[in-house]
C-alpha cells in the first residue's frame, strides 16, 4: 500500500495504529513514525501548519528516490463544526486556509464517503462560522503533499470532535481514539482505494528492469537517460520488453551504441 498518513497528534495515531496494525519505527528520530509490512507509513507531525508541512517534507524527501513511485497522502484528524454530531466525518472537497483566504479543491475520485468543506485556522476556532470542519493542518498538508504526489492522491479526512454544544475547551481528549476508531470502515475503504489508484498509476509508469540495469552499468548523460527511459517504455508498450536484453549487449555497448541499437530495432519493428 503506497500510502502515507499524517496525523497531528499521538492520540489521533493511537486508533489508526491499532486498526492498521502498524508498528513504531524506532529508527525515526525527527517524528514519531509507524509503518507496516504493506508499506503503509504513518507520521505524527505535531499540531499546526508548520508542523504538518515539515512532516510531509521529511517523508516526501525520504521517498523521493523511490524510482519515481507515486504514493498517496492522507491527513486524518479531528476537527470542530458548529452542529455536526461528534464522531461524524467527511472527506474534504474544499480546503480553505483562513489566514490567506486561499482555497484548494482535492479532486474527488473516491465515492461512497461523506464529503464537505474544511477550514484550516491558525488558532482553535470556537464559533465555527461556516458550514465546515475547522482544524489546523489541512491547507498546509495539501499544499505540501501535492509537491510529492498528484493532487488526486492527496486527501484529508476529518472526524468531528467538538461543536457548539460540546466546545473545544471541554473535549475529553481521551475520547479522540474512540471517535477515530469509529470511522474505521470509512478510512479503511479510503486507504484501500487510494492505494489501488496509486498502484495502478505506478504500474502504468513502471520501467523495465533493463532500464535500471543499463543505468547501473553504462555511463549515461541526463539526456541519454531520458532517451533510454523512453525507448524502454516504447518496448514495453509494444509488448517487447523481453527483447530488450537481446537487442543490446550491455557488456559491449557504450551509451550511444546502446541507444542506437535499441532505436533501430524498435523503429524497424514499428514501421514494418
Amino acid at each position, binding site marked *: 500500500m503506497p500510502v502515507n498518513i499524517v496525523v497531528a497528534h499521538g492520540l489521533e495515531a493511537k486508533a489508526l495504529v491499532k486498526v492498521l496494525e502498524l508498528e513504531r519505527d524506532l529508527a525515526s528520530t525527527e517524528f514519531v513514525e509507524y509503518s507496516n509490512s504493506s508499506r503503509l507509513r504513518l507520521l505524527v507531525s505535531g499540531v499546526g501548519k508548520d508542523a504538518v508541512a515539515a512532516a510531509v517534507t521529511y517523508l516526501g524527501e525520504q521517498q523521493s528516490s523511490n524510482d519515481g513511485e507515486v504514493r498517496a497522502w492522507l491527513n486524518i484528524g479531528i476537527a470542530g463544526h458548529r452542529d455536526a454530531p461528534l464522531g461524524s466525518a467527511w472527506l474534504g*472537497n474544499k480546503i480553505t486556509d483562513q489566514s490567506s483566504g486561499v482555497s484548494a479543491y482535492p479532486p*474527488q475520485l473516491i465515492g461512497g464517503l461523506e464529503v464537505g468543506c474544511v477550514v484550516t485556522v491558525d488558532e482553535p476556532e470556537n464559533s465555527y462560522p461556516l458550514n465546515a470542519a475547522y482544524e489546523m493542518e489541512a491547507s498546509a498538508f495539501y499544499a505540501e503533499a*501535492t509537491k510529492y504526489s498528484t493532487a488526486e492522491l492527496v486527501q484529508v479526512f476529518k472526524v468531528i470532535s467538538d461543536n457548539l454544544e460540546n466546545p473545544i475547551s471541554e473535549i475529553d481528549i481521551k475520547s479522540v481514539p474512540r471517535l477515530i476508531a469509529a470511522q474505521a470502515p470509512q478510512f479503511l475503504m479510503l486507504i484501500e482505494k487510494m492505494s489501488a489508484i496509486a498502484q495502478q498509476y505506478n504500474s502504468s509508469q513502471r520501467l523495465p528492469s533493463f532500464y535500471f540495469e543499463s543505468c547501473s552499468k553504462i555511463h549515461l548523460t541526463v539526456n541519454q537517460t531520458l532517451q533510454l527511459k*523512453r525507448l524502454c517504455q516504447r518496448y514495453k508498450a509494444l509488448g517487447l520488453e523481453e527483447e530488450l536484453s537481446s537487442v543490446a549487449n550491455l557488456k559491449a555497448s557504450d551509451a550511444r551504441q546502446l541507444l542506437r541499437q535499441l532505436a533501430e530495432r524498435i*523503429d524497424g519493428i514499428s514501421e514494418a
Partner: protein
Amino acid sequence: MFSTIYIEEEVLESERVRNLLARFPQVPQVICDRYGEVFNRKSQNFRLQKMAPALILAKKYGNKVLAAPSGYGYNDSNSYYFSHMLNCVYDCRYCFLQGMYSSANYVLFVNYEDFEEAIVEKIAENNGGGVYYSGYDCDSLALEPVSDFCSHFLPVFRRYPDAELEIRTKSTQIRCLLDTEVVPNCVIAMSFTTNEAARQWEHKVPSIEKRLEALHKLQLAGWKVAIRFEPLVLGVEGLAPYEALFAKVFSKLDGQRLHSISTGLFRMPVDFHKRIVKLYPDEELFARPTEIKNGMIALKNAQESSHLVAIEKLLLSYVSHEQYYRCG
C-alpha cells in the same frame, strides 16, 4: 454521472445553473470563485481524473469566438470555433485534449447569451456568413441532456441562414435535433475510425453501428450530415479495416446526400504529445515512430503512405471529389 459539481459563485444564481443543479441533487456541490481554481491546476493528472470527472459550471470571459486552425474546415470561408465546454465525456486515447489540459473535468460555460452575442458580432463582420465549428474542445452533443446546447444555439443560426454551424460529435444524443425543425445551415459531423481503432482507443464512445443509426435518422429527418474519418492511424493492417468501415457507413447512409466527407491523419502539437506520453507511457499508439513538422507530431511516413492514397481512392468510389477534403 459527475463526481462533484463545482459552481462559480458568480453563476450560482443564474436560472440555467439552478435548473441544472436541481437535476443532480445527489451530486456534491462545491462553490468556487473561478473555475481556474479547480481546473487545469499543476499537480493534476488527466488520466486519473478520467476515472471520476467532475462538472464545473463557469462563466466564460474574453474571446468566445476564435479563428479555426488552418486546414480545419471544408471550404474557404472564414472559419471560427467556439467552445461552450472544455473536455469531453469520451476517453479517446488519440485525443489532443489529454495533452491540452491537466484536468479531465468538464467545464461548462453557462453564459450562452454572451456566446450568442459574440457569434452574432462575428457573423456581422462576415457579412452574414462564415463557418462556425462547435465541438473543437469538447463533444457538443454528448452532454446535451445537461447543457441544452442545441436548444439555445440552433435558433441563433436559424436567424442567419448564410452562416454555417458544424456540430462535431461522436454522440448519439440526437433527440434535441429530431425534435426541432431542421436548420438548413447546420451540419452534424460525426467522427469515425475503423472498428479496430475504435475498439482499441475509443473508450465510452457509442458503437459505430449506433452512431450510424443516429446519422441515418438525422439524414431521414432532413438534417445535413457529414462524416469525418479521423484520425487515420495507418498501420500494418492495411486497407481491409477501411474497406469494412466504408462499406458499413455507405450501406447505411446516402453517400450522395452527405454534406461533406473528410479524412485527417493522427497528429497533434508536439507539446501536447509530450504530455500525453507522460500520462500513457504504456500506450502502443505513442510507442510508434513519429516525425515532427512545423511543431506538429505525426506518425512517421504517414503523409507519404501508399495506404493513405489507397484509402482516399476507396473513399472516392463512394463519394464525389466535391464532397471530399483532407483535413490539415
